[in-house]
């Protein structure tokens, strides 16, 4: 099982390199942080919760393999109907693509086209995505959150102390790294207009910083730094910020999420709108990631505590 998860992590890395090769920087960025980093970790925690060895397979692996081959073959056959890669008369290049590419600088005033498409032209879709993430956070909370007892915390404290002593090198290196990781998250957040980056990636990097801290100093310590109620509130706040930007633009006489009316000058309005909604996205993503991590790890520690085999 472990090996499978590791290979999935490698797959994430390969994917991201592939996106880089295809010039899709922002996608690669997201894949790098989410696909290769966080999801590997979460899968591992899941494996830790459910047990490392799988049960005896009850179905025939050969059948599954054949099914996969057939489906894959059909899908590849399906691609024959698609226009050739990079062909100029593909439907993608006929529809709104040229408009986004050629006019976004004048209309939005943001050098990074992906950001303007994501946050402005497709603002509604992104709002939906943020809500999905928020819902996922709520779902995880509903399924996995456990009532914490104070004595558990005390036991965990003891373990974490031993972690410190055992990992002197890691402790010092990580202590030095954490401020830079967190600041880098903010940097990615606010430079989404100019280069690859934006709320999604920033949120994940921020969460990665916190997760790093939690892994070394223990979940209890991380929960004291950023408490559960605060994260829950922040995740809701993110969606709220996003939504309110839309509402304010409606109040100012535009349609929902039409940033042109946010300021006197349409470009400035777009700029402000994108900044704000990216902030909302970042808040939600970061806090939901942290919530998921807290719940997963808290749950597995809870299970272990119940079995009396805490490390």
């Amino acid at each position, binding site marked *: 099982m472990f090996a499978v998860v590791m290979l999935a992590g*490698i797959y994430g*890395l390969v994917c991201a390199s592939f996106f880089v090769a295809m010039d899709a920087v922002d996608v690669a960025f997201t894949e790098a942080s989410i696909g290769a980093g966080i999801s590997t970790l979460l899968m591992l925690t899941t494996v830790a919760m459910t047990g490392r060895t799988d049960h005896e397979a009850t179905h025939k692996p050969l059948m599954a393999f054949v099914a996969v081959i057939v489906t894959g073959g059909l899908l590849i056959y399906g691609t024959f109907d698609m226009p050739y890669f990079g062909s100029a008369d593909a439907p993608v290049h006929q529809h709104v693509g040229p408009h986004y590419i050629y006019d976004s600088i004048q209309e939005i005033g943001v050098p990074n086209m992906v950001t303007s498409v994501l946050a402005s032209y497709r603002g509604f879709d992104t709002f939906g995505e943020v809500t999905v993430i928020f819902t996922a956070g709520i779902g995880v909370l509903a399924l996995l959150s456990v009532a914490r007892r104070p004595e558990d915390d005390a036991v965990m404290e003891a373990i974490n102390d031993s972690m410190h002593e055992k990992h002197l090198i890691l402790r010092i290196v990580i202590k030095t790294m954490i401020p830079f990781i967190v600041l880098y998250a903010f940097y990615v957040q606010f430079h989404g207009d100019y280069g690859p980056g934006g709320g999604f990636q920033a949120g994940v990097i921020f969460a990665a910083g916190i997760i790093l801290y939690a892994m070394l100093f223990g979940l209890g310590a991380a929960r004291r730094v950023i408490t559960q109620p605060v994260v829950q509130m922040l995740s809701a706040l993110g969606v709220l910020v996003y939504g309110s930007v839309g509402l304010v633009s409606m109040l100012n006489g535009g349609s929902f999420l039409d940033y042109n009316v946010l300021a006197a000058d349409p470009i400035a309005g777009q700029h402000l709108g994108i900044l704000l909604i990216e902030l909302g996205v970042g808040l939600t993503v970061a806090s939901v990631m942290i919530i998921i991590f807290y719940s997963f790890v808290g749950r597995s520690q809870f299970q272990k505590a119940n079995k009396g085999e805490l490390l």
Partner: protein
Amino acid sequence: MIIAATLAVLVVMILAIIRAVVGPSLYDRILAVNMFGTKTVLLIALLGFVMGRPEFLDIAMVYALINFVSVIGVLRLSDAFNAKHNGPVAEPAKRDS
């Protein structure tokens, strides 16, 4: 030259994957994945130059960070798995002189 370096890094990545698949121990795999990650950082930096878009470097930097986080995470969790077998630190072999 950059292309040559890119190819070299790609080859090394394939070698690392082979090691990750072959194993044999869990730590070999983690080592291979870690190496794969650091090579991806290089690859992205190189690709940025091949494409003439040096802002790729931001991604390379995030990679370096995320790679570190996941390796530490994997180790932490595998530590938890193997906790049962945990004993005193293995005796270092004496230098035979």
